């Protein structure tokens, strides 16, 4: 608290006070006329049950409940509140579910290790955007200030600190209400994932169980990942030269060519695509995907690798994972790029001699030329060039594509590793590789 107070003193500098004075007065007028220390105003609205009174004088029943929409600087947080220090026993953090992805996940993961109970919001609203802490049944901190380095050092923020047992009781009740009715305990991702893979991967991934998935026998086998050190290592990715014919294709000129290539493929169709936007109304995209499935059914080897975003909350994750589920059932060897190594290319290689390279993603706008400027090039080679296959299948990909549960869990693991510091990652990798030794 002492450190927090010092920060508050900075925010209460003359300049900030002058800047926000009028704004805060308006805010206070509209809300409640609060007087610190001696506030005895009217009852606060009782939308939520108030916290139960604690016996007076028991310092071991402090409640600390900071909620941060973004909490990216764990050291700063630890400097504010150290569990076990000064008699603090209970330290509860409620976090928005955006904290469960990317580098934020690594930050969040450190709190359970420090003895801090963490729960994450299960959406009853779009996000947990409030930034509020309640301390020792009397101090309430709230405002716009996320607990981030940027907020503390660079941003213009406002922060209010009240010394009001009544307000603290109200907020504690409110926050307990959220924690109990709209949140779930935070699970340590890596440990949970390792255990869950062998038990119930679908449930562990939060997916509805649909029974055992039977992919066509023509799909190459995939296996659980046993090595984690080289996940994002790029393959042999040297530049190379070929000779051939070139056709420039812009906007809507791409679609008929790619469909002709797919429908006349004799051996193989290899696709590496940053984005496939298979929305409900994306009829053209669905037609192209159907044609890929038809080609696979006719014996053509179809390999489709899709980008996986850094954050699971990115809608591309669900879109591409759903495509993988659907097309693998049709015999298309769909693979998912390992998060952390962005796959941004848009390449189609048919029979190793007809190649499309350019800017066209497989979205309705790009394929139809509706409202988007695009350009790609068709290469037609007199000889097949295996190095195109080399490039495409050499991308870092998810290893375990046995079913959606297994690839979702591997994605969670890879994202978790990507979010950790080097030391943490090394330790996790050692543990994972030991656990997965045959």
């Amino acid at each position, binding site marked *: 608290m002492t450190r927090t107070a010092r920060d508050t003193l900075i925010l209460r500098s003359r300049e900030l006070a002058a800047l926000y004075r009028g704004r805060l007065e308006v805010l206070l007028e509209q809300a409640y006329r609060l007087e610190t220390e001696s506030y005895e105003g009217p009852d606060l609205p009782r939308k939520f049950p108030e916290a139960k009174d604690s016996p007076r004088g028991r310092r071991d029943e402090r409640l600390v409940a900071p909620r941060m929409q973004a909490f990216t600087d764990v050291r700063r947080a630890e400097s504010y509140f150290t569990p076990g220090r000064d008699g603090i026993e209970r330290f509860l953090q409620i976090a928005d579910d955006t904290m469960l992805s990317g580098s934020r996940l690594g930050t969040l993961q450190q709190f359970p290790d420090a003895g801090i109970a963490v729960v994450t919001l299960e959406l009853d609203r779009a996000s947990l955007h409030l930034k509020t802490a309640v301390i020792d049944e009397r101090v309430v901190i709230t405002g716009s200030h996320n607990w981030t380095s940027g907020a503390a050092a660079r941003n213009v923020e406002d922060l209010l600190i009240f010394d009001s047992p009544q307000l603290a009781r109200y907020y504690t009740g409110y926050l307990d209400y959220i924690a109990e009715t709209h949140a779930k305990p935070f699970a340590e991702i890596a440990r949970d994932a390792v255990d869950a893979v062998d038990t119930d991967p679908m449930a562990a991934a939060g997916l509805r169980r649909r029974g055992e998935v039977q992919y066509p026998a*023509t*799909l*190459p*086998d995939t296996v659980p990942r046993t090595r984690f050190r080289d996940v994002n290592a*790029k*393959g042999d*990715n*040297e*530049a*190379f*030269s*070929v*000779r*051939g*014919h*070139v*056709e*420039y294709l812009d906007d809507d000129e791409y679609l008929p*060519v790619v469909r*002709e*290539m797919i429908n*006349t493929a*004799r*051996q*193989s169709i290899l696709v590496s695509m940053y984005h496939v936007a298979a929305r409900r109304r994306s009829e053209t995209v669905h037609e192209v995907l159907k044609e890929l499935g038809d080609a696979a059914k*006719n*014996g*053509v*080897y179809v*390999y489709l690798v899709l980008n996986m975003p850094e954050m699971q909350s990115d809608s591309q994750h669900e879109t591409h994972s759903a495509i993988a589920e659907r097309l693998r059932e049709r015999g298309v060897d769909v693979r998912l790029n390992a998060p952390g190594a962005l796959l941004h290319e848009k390449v189609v290689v048919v*029979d*190793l*001699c*007809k190649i499309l*390279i350019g*800017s066209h993603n497989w979205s309705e706008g790009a394929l139809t030329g509706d409202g988007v*400027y695009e350009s790609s090039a*068709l*290469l*037609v*080679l*007199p*000889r*097949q*060039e*295996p*190095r*195109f*296959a*080399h*490039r495409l*299948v*050499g991308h870092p990909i998810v290893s375990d594509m046995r079913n959606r549960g297994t690839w979702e869990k591997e994605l969670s693991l890879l994202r978790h590793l990507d979010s950790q510091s080097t030391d943490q990652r090394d330790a996790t990798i050692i543990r994972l590789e030991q656990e997965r030794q045959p």
Partner: protein
Amino acid sequence: MKWFSSLRRPRSRQQTVQRIGLAMAILGVPVCGQAEPDRIFFRDGSSKQGRVVADTNGVYTFAEAGGPTVPVRRNTVRFVVYGDEKTVKERLGIDAFQAQCTDTDIRILPAESFGAEILQQVQSAKKFIYMTTYSLSGSESGRMGEIFEALKERAQAGVKVYLIAPAFTQEAVTDFRSLRRSAKALHQVSF
């Protein structure tokens, strides 16, 4: 992926022909011409060399050197790499795809060498440079800094440089404008 390591093109056609010729000679197979063998890559990761005699009804008719012909179901194969252009032309239908530019040198670049290649091309421009991009990062340092410096230098040397970029690339476009102030040949179009 292990199937992949065997996929790469041999170092030179001459070496391959020599190897095949030697192998066929050892096996007592008469060497007919200098064509490379066909290579067949299976979905289980294995591969074989020989000749794909026919490709009909979802089945390849395949013979290893000196061996009998055997049927190979297409749905067990990733792809076949034919050893000669004639077979590619006949079986893979490349004539159906027309192209404006024939017999062109094509260089495929991985991401790592793209920036270096762009820089080299910009530095060697003599008359004009047209750039269009969806996204453009800042120009203060690194490879993009070098590219912006090269654009500035070329513009000051009289090369006309055009940038067409979406209006939302504000930061980089601002950088580009700052270049434009010192090099009148830089032009920017936003949409």
